[in-house]
């Protein structure tokens, strides 16, 4: 029994960064913007969090720095995809390259540095679960949520009603970046707690895939993320019995399986109508 509980606890810790980042992406995509830069924003957030916590000695300052760094990184994507109306998919990809590169470059001097006061993993996990409920409530039961959803479904109609489409999309994108930054802070302040180049190891991409799989519903994301977490844990526990490379590749393979399943069930019909399309006033 105790073993099951400890296994579940580990699964939740593994799943927390995926959940935090996916919650952000749910909001972003609900507003009609696709941001494939999650992996890069997570890396930037992880480095900023670690650097701030290490130099100030205060891990909470680290969390703030991580969240801010993620938000700033996301605003680059918002500018390019909302204002300049460029291809959102490629812009996100560029943001990932930039984020991974920048964090690897500037984080060079923090490799191997110890962190005196790491944070507890469970704090982040519970915060993520609470946030998923809050996001669900806001999306479906408040005016703000209605505004975000209508901007994502039909930006032209929302604009005609006098809603600030650009502003809402900006806000949502930056929120998504802050959540990715928080996920990064979890990795470098609680989960590891240390900094290394490439420590996000594809978690950001898994979060993007999860967003599609859970059909843009924040509460479902909780179960999805912890399911992935459980898999990571199993892979970890099975080491030695199977080739470790096979187990390490498993989560990535699972993402493909999950996306295929989502497509088979036509879940993508749930996608916001205006997803990934830049909005320009005067066009439909």
């Amino acid at each position: 029994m105790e073993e099951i509980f400890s296994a579940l606890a580990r699964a939740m810790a593994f799943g927390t960064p995926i959940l935090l980042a996916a919650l952000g992406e749910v909001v972003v995509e609900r507003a009609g913007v696709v941001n494939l830069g999650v992996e890069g924003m997570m890396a930037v957030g992880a480095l900023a969090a670690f650097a701030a916590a290490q130099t100030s000695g205060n891990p909470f300052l680290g969390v703030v720095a991580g969240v801010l760094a993620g938000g700033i990184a996301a605003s680059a994507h918002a500018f390019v995809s909302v204002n300049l109306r460029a291809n959102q998919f490629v812009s996100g990809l560029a943001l990932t390259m930039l984020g991974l590169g920048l964090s690897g470059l500037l984080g060079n001097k923090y490799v191997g540095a110890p962190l005196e006061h790491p944070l507890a993993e469970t704090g982040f996990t519970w915060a993520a679960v609470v946030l998923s409920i809050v996001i669900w409530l806001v999306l479906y039961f408040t005016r703000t949520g209605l505004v975000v959803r209508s901007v994502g479904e039909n930006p032209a109609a929302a604009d005609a009603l006098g809603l600030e489409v650009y502003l809402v999309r900006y806000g949502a994108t930056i929120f998504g970046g802050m959540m990715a930054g928080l996920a990064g802070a979890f990795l470098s302040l609680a989960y590891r707690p240390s900094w290394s180049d490439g420590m996000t190891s594809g978690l950001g991409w898994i979060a993007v895939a999860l967003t599609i799989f859970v059909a843009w519903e924040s509460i479902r994301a909780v179960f999805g993320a912890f399911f992935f977490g459980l898999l990571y844990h199993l892979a970890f526990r099975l080491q030695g019995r199977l080739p470790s490379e096979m187990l390490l590749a498993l989560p990535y393979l699972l993402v493909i399986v999950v996306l295929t399943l989502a497509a088979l069930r036509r879940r993508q019909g749930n996608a916001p109508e205006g997803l990934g399309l830049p909005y320009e006033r005067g066009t439909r």
Partner: protein
Amino acid sequence: MVRLEFDPNPPGNRVWLVMGLAVLAAIALSSLIFWSYGVPPVTAYLTLFKGTLANPAGIAESFRRAIPLLLIGAGLSLAFRSQFFNIGAEGQLLLGASAATGVALFIPLPAELKLVTMFLAGFLAGGAYALIAALLKSRLGVNEILSTLMLNYIAVYIVQFLVNGPWKGRSLMGFAYTEQFPAAATLPVIGGTLIHWPTLLLGVLLALFLQLILNRSTIGYELRVVGENLEAARYAGINIGRTVLMVAMLSGGLAGLAGVGEAAGIHKRLLDPAQISLGYGFTAIIVAWLARGNPALTIFTALLMGLIFAGGDVMKLNLQMPFRVVDVFSGLLLMFLIGSEPLARYRLKFGRRA
């Protein structure tokens, strides 16, 4: 009075001008990165210039790096023209290298057939790997960006499994790699450099050939229609699924060829994935984007990005900067390139509104 006017079909020279400005902006912003790393930008640029353009060894290095970029970039420009966003070239390259290694080490063949078979196997392996994502896209509508990216990670573990497990060589020095290829399975290089010229020649020929296909054949026409207007393609009775599969096979196959070149020309064995490819698959996206989807132009843009790679090496050696500096520049460049693209669709108008 100056104002902006929308121009949906910008003339070619304005597009190139805006792109040139985007490249300059990315270079200018990189100064900020060098500075934040504690390297004075002037020193950085001087070191870069001395180590690459002003140095024969640097130029040779740029050519060597340009070879995989050219092969992958030519294929990707075709893929992007048809709106198939193949981000998995990195994995397709690794599979190509693995297939070549399998042929080189384990299949007994007459010496003169060895290399040809390796290139064929690499093309098929890379193409088949891309085909997985293409099938999922055309049959079920699975986003190919995500699936090809995940296939990259899986390819890394496949190679790691091979070099640590069944294909592990005897000569170990703390690093895992396979046995060295027999002489008949290695590519000749230009004396004193690492330029494996047969692959370079193959890349140039293929880039020109793909351009010909794109501009002068029915397949190329169909591919462009699918990319520019899916609805029109459907009305015209173009087999969209087949087009996507073909583009995937070609772009994946070319990435596979790049992998064969790296394995047979540079390393002469299969080794850790991080050493086989330094992110060629991702940088090649920029190569294709800079060429605006024209395979023939990737001959030049691949050289340009090869120069950036060589520059990364110089920065690493002389200024002790991590090689990641290349990713930073690539990311900036791509961001500026796509951000500036819509800007080309506006023209400055002087004078009063008509």
